[in-house]
């Protein structure tokens, strides 16, 4: 499996706080990498560094073999990187359809308006928002906005998709639907990094899990290995019982 994304010794510092500390990581072609860790571990900061919102202080990041360290987000979008936000960021006063058209227009394929509309309609169908396409984005419910985030990112036809807590705030049925959707997206050849606090979900959906704490990698491996790791149990899960429950839930 060749790597779509590689990071080497990536650090990001805010004043005295080292949010990401000499982190090296890799995502294979078509792989789903789960990213977990306690609040403040540096997960979202890592996303922001990967997609160019922040420039890393040290280290190097490559996307499909190309050095992208310090490239701005808009350029990375054209290179095939798309993301969703932990707190949905819809274009409020625009329709759901226009939101997704914008994703298709300015994403990897940089489509013109008409072909972008076609892609957008297909994508809305795919994520199950088709009948809401003419609603203003601000009128969607939270699960709707999360779907819109995913639709907008997918319409860009990315090679690598960064999903930041798309399951948080959804009820169990909606979580199930979203997990199905994520698996289906991977089947289409898109590589994914997913940040999630819902352990059951991340255990079932990820091929590999990376655990962060204080900006450092404390464990990495197959989901069932990671939950058994003492460092992870201590830092994140809190007790060995939870680790056992999770393993049995597998």
């Amino acid at each position, binding site marked *: 499996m060749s790597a779509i994304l590689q990071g080497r010794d990536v650090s990001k510092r805010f004043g005295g706080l080292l949010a990401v500390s000499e982190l090296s990581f890799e995502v294979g072609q078509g792989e789903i990498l789960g990213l977990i860790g306690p609040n403040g571990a540096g997960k979202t900061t890592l996303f922001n560094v990967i997609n160019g919102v922040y420039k890393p202080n040290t280290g190097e990041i490559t996307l499909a073999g190309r050095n992208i360290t310090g490239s701005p987000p*808009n350029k990375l979008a054209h290179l095939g990187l798309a993301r969703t*936000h932990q707190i949905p960021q819809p*274009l409020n*006063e625009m329709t759901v359809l226009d939101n997704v*058209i914008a994703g298709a227009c300015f*994403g990897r394929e940089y489509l013109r*308006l008409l072909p972008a509309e076609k892609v957008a309609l297909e994508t809305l169908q795919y994520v199950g928002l088709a009948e809401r396409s003419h609603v203003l984005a601000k009128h969607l419910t939270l699960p709707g906005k999360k779907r819109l985030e995913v639709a907008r990112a997918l319409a860009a036809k990315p090679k690598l998709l960064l999903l930041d807590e798309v399951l948080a705030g959804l009820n169990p049925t909606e979580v199930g639907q979203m997990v199905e959707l994520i698996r289906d997206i991977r089947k289409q050849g898109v590589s994914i990094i997913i940040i999630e606090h819902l352990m059951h979900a991340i255990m079932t959906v990820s091929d590999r899990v990376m655990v962060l704490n204080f900006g450092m990698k404390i464990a990495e491996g197959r989901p069932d290995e990671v939950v058994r790791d003492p460092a992870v149990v201590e830092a994140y899960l809190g007790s060995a019982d939870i680790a056992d429950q999770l393993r049995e839930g597998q």
Partner: protein
Amino acid sequence: MILKRPFFWITMAVTAAFMLLPWRGNNVEMRETLILIAVAIILASNLNLMIGYTGYVNFGNIVFFGLGGYAGLYLVTGRGWPLIGAALAAGVAVSIFALLLGLAILRLRGAYFALATIGVLEAVRAFVSNFEPWGRSAGMYVTFDVYQPLGGPMKALWTTYFLVTGVMGLSLLLSLGIKTSKFGLGLFAIRENEDAAVVLGVNTALYKAIVYSASAFLPAVAGALIFFKNGMIEPEQAFDLTLSIEAIVMIMLGGQGTVAGSAVGAGLYEQLRGYLLTQPTLSNFHLVIAGALLLIIVLFAPLGLIGWTHRWRPMRRMLE
């Protein structure tokens, strides 16, 4: 295609009406009323590109109009250029100025950007007031002989009038063209959520600078034409903050972000202002009305008149 849009044909019809109505019967009074409305529409619809489309409030929009006037008048009187060439050159020069300025000050957002635009206006006014080639605070005057190439003053006034109405038509078409384009979609994305827009792939810095520059071009051309017609220009008149703010009232009145809104708002406001200005009791009373109007709109009808009509879908299709 833009030709299929009803509003394209509405614009054409309105522009033609502006040109023909006063021309038939040589109605100079009507011409003078309509030229004020045309200028208001030019200022409002180009400012709408910034405020309504991109979400950046520009209090200093009038600076483009004034600089265009100065550059145009200087080329005509000081360099002997023909009017149309001078007006176009003024437009291009002011656009380039706006592009460079935009790349710098558009890093600011929200209230900080708005404050910076006032700073730009005041700085330009102070500079021009001390700029020897442009006559310092006394300004510049046109001598009668510059009207000769256009067939004397009477004909020259009509020629400038037609040119100004043409610029008005172009302003509306520019607004419509941008609104229905991918560029426009990018601007709306910036207005709604600039951070999300960058992540989606919009080159926000470039888009903002381009629209800032585009919103400068036609007002500068209009400035060159209007001050040529007036025969004189001076800093206080050319860089009038009040007029800048009135343009914002026009946009809010008609409906920000809509093409028809800025035109309708400009037309209505200019009529109101004309009426109030000619009342003997209070001077500058229109500014009181403008302030009150702005408050009422922002509080009770933030989408303006056209935004209100958008409740009816067919109406919306007609006007966009």
